[in-house]
């Protein structure tokens, strides 16, 4: 039962990792941009949530109504104002610029919020649990997993059933020809980044309810997100969810064997899968 419990808890944790990863996967899929600042953006969203909840007294989940659009606007402006200028045949400039952004966001957060760990207060939600077949499941992890599935389903639907998604795929396939269809790639990229940071906002708030956070932990979230994307295979959002789950399960099972092994066993699972399937489990982009 203990092992089953570890696997179930790991699966639910995987939902959070999938949320970390979905934004990364989306922008890589659309514009081949690897966003080194992604983890710091998750933490930025958590702090924005903190500010909103302390200023208005709103429940953190209700704060999403403000934080998601705010992050979306930040994403669009950032893409149009800065990141579009770095995109081209060379992969290095966007890496360097987003690395710089990562440093700037971390230091900005330190300046404004200090290095003290913070947490959002979600009241009873944090401790509520339901008993399912002898297992005790936290309502928050279950909710997080459900949100992850809903977000990925929503992104997938947007990608394959809307004009916007068609534009994303067209621009990703061939930027020049997409321009000939009247699509301004700079705008499309801006919208993709807005969407990605909207998802990031959800991830950041759920993270900030679940655990305490400080300005320095973005890098770790970036790694988990990366690993989930790579395990699942580039360009496949459902794969990203599977990647998150594998990572989560590896971590909880590792922690069950020895509490010190949690993070390490996640990385080992990642390396193992890379060794067997260098392109991840379900790649759509080679």
């Amino acid at each position, binding site marked *: 039962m203990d092992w089953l419990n570890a696997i179930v808890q790991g699966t639910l944790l995987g939902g959070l990792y999938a949320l970390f990863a979905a934004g990364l996967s989306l922008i890589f899929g659309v514009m081949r941009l690897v966003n080194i600042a992604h983890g710091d953006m998750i933490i930025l969203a958590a702090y924005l949530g903190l500010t909103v909840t302390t200023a208005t007294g709103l429940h953190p989940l209700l704060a999403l109504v403000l934080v998601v659009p705010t992050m979306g606007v930040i994403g669009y402006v950032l893409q149009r104002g800065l990141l579009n200028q770095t995109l081209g045949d060379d992969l290095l400039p966007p890496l360097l610029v987003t690395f710089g952004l990562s440093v700037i966001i971390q230091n900005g957060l330190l300046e404004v919020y200090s290095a003290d760990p913070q947490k959002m207060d979600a009241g009873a939600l944090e401790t509520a649990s339901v008993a399912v077949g002898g297992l005790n499941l936290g309502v928050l992890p279950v909710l997080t997993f459900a949100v992850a599935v809903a977000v990925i389903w929503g992104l997938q639907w947007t990608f394959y059933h809307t004009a916007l998604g*068609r534009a994303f795929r067209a621009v990703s396939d*061939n930027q*020049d*020809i997409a*321009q000939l*269809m*009247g699509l301004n790639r700079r705008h499309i990229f801006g919208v993709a980044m807005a969407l990605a940071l909207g998802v990031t906002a959800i991830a950041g708030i759920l993270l900030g309810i679940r655990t305490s956070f400080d300005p320095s932990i973005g890098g770790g979230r970036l790694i988990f997100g990366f690993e989930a994307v790579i395990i699942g295979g580039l360009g496949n959002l459902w794969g990203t969810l599977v990647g998150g789950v594998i990572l989560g399960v590896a971590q909880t099972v590792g922690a069950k064997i020895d509490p010190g092994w949690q993070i390490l066993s996640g990385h080992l699972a990642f390396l193992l899968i890379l060794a067997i399937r260098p392109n991840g489990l379900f790649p759509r982009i080679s």
Partner: protein
Amino acid sequence: MPEPILQLHGLDAHYGDFQALYGVDMKVMEGEVLAIIGSNGAGKTTLMRSITGLLSNGPAQIKYRGVDISAQRADEIAVQGLAMVPEGRQLFPSLSVRENLMIGAQVGRKGPWDLDAVYKLFPILEERKDQQSTSLSGGQQQMVAIGRALMANPDLILFDEISLGLAPIIIKDIYEALPGIIGEGMSAIIVEQDISKALSVSSRVYCLQEGRVSLEGASDTVSREDISRAYFGIE
């Protein structure tokens, strides 16, 4: 007296240090079909890329309906009714046949062309509408590329070597469909290696040689000798 829909004045084009077009002057009249011929590497595709805004141009080198479009982006030019069937088809591999056609309509221009009209022109595309575009034969892919451009209801349509790599029978089919496509007041530029094909569908012809216009004339009066001189540069 018809107005020119497109006018080029001393158009230059560069790839880095390499100059691919030198002072090209050209005009396309309203409703006219213009042919452009020239050997491999003469600069035909470069010319198409310049006109559509995919290559950046010098100021005042391209006028569309009397307006200087040299500094506009490709998507801004596209919504004004300039569409292209690019060399090598260049369909979107992650879009289905139907989606490839639909995205052509993204510019939101009204006109006779919609999905039904394209399916009527190329019935096979309706049968294949849910397939990935890459799973089609070369000829069918070319139909999608043509349909995609038509979906924009363009006023001026550019065809860059639509017969390249296709079987002669398919080429014949496509060229037989052309008059029906270009009718209805549309203007067209047809880039074609097959000189007699080019002459038969056009009213005027330009020949490019090493980035320069080497011949310009009416398609029905231009002589074979003039063409081979302009084409190969043989004196």
